[in-house]
């Protein structure tokens, strides 16, 4: 895992966290809502490989059924540490072979830099490889598509094992001290409920990546000016990058 220098609290997603709290409250009132906390008991053997249809017991996240995933970070105190929440059927009890999948992953992190944080957390989440489980993700569309093998199901694999593996992987990142995950399989409508959070987070991450990957700091010509105007944390990043660019320019003289 990448060990990064300790930094301050990060806050670009603060407004979205309010929305997540509202969504979680709604989910908690449903009869198919469950939370598991005991990460220690949720270990599953690592493994990778392709799972073909004929080996598949359950497929999750077919875009036609509903597929959304997002990864956010915030001050560690705002995270319900260790919570693995599931709204809807677990794969072992699913009556259908295909289920929608929505996923919100939240890490409580202290990093000196938001982009470093994004890269380290992404590595931790996307790098999770479990035996009998295959996941493919499309970050720009926030979709996740998974298959769980028949062998894994008969060995007792559940979505809580997946949640546990993701949280454990996040906690292995230096700078991360808490993590939680909310998974939704209850139907397309419930998966769509998290869309405002997912799209809000994507807008912010896109703006952040653009800032870090370009050298032009002219805010007036930037497509993401409106995002920066809404989120003060992004403006701070931009100011910092401008200063860095200036410093480099001065050193070059």
């Amino acid at each position, binding site marked *: 895992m990448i060990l990064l220098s300790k930094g301050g609290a990060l806050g670009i997603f603060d407004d979205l966290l309010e929305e997540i709290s509202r969504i979680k409250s709604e989910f908690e009132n449903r009869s198919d809502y469950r939370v598991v906390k005991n990460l220690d008991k949720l270990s599953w053997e690592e493994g990778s490989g*392709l799972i*073909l249809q*004929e080996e598949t017991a359950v497929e999750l996240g077919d875009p036609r059924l509903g597929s959304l995933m997002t990864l956010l970070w915030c001050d560690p105190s705002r995270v319900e540490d260790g919570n693995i929440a599931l709204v809807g059927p677990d794969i072992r009890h699913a009556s259908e072979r295909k289920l929608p999948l929505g996923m919100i992953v939240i890490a409580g992190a202290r990093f000196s830099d938001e982009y470093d944080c994004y890269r380290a957390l*992404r590595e931790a989440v996307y790098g999770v490889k479990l035996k009998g489980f295959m996941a493919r*993700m499309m*970050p*720009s569309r926030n979709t996740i598509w998974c298959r769980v093998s028949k062998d894994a199901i008969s060995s007792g694999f559940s979505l809580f094992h997946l949640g546990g593996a993701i949280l454990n992987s996040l906690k292995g990142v230096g700078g991360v001290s808490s993590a939680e995950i909310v998974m939704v399989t209850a139907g397309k409508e419930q998966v769509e409920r998290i869309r405002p959070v997912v799209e809000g987070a994507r807008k912010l991450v*896109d703006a952040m*990546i653009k800032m870090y990957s370009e050298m032009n700091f002219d805010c007036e010509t930037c497509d993401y000016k409106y995002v920066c105007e809404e989120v003060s944390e992004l403006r701070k990043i931009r100011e910092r990058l401008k200063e860095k660019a200036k410093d480099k320019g001065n050193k070059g003289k």
Partner: protein
Amino acid sequence: MIVAICGKGGVGKTTVAAITAKELSEKKDLKALVVDADPAGGLSMALGLMPKKTINDVRKEIVEEIKAGLRDEKDLAISLDYLLNTAIKEYGNLAILAIGRPEDEGCYCRVNVILKDAIEGLAENFDIALIDAEAGIEQVNRKVLSAVDYMLLITDTSVKGLKVAETILSVGKRMTAMRGAGLIINRVRDTDIDYQTHINTPIEILGVIPEDETVKRFDEEGKSFLEIPPCPARESLKALLNRAGLLGNTVP
């Protein structure tokens, strides 16, 4: 193991690839990736399994992602895995990928390299990857097949067919990682001739496939070769594939 089926155009390469895919589909303990690398998509048609999306479509999607400029290399690599999987058509233990035909202009060198690496990475998940290569030498020359372990060269009884196979082998030795190669003489009318002594070639001759009415009928009627019943051509090919160790029994 990555196996490429190569040869001159019109020697029955795609039919051999289709029947090989049929044999692999019956080896339930093997996972096989079948790549239709002919831009015309002949193998997909011969198998009756047209993927909804081709590798060329994936390439376009990746280009769009790069143009949007909102994702770094890591995100693109993750996305590529996702997009490649959406391009796979499955049939039992077989996964079929079609290359498709590039229609738009522009340089795709970087994207092609990313895609080639991704396909090679995907192939590692399978016991065998079978590539029906474009006719002739172009793909071998452009290093598209650089990761190939074994080259299955197909010819008919013409001298031209044999010469093209020999050229492909000679270039393949320089441009690929191949560890072995074998020659199959296809559509042979007189199977009594001893081709091992009759033909002078540096390529190891695996054997011959007789001309076969069943194969001809399947071709003419556009039937899926995954439905082809036992027939002399199929039986001969199966024996040759076993001899080369391509059906999971021995490593060549």
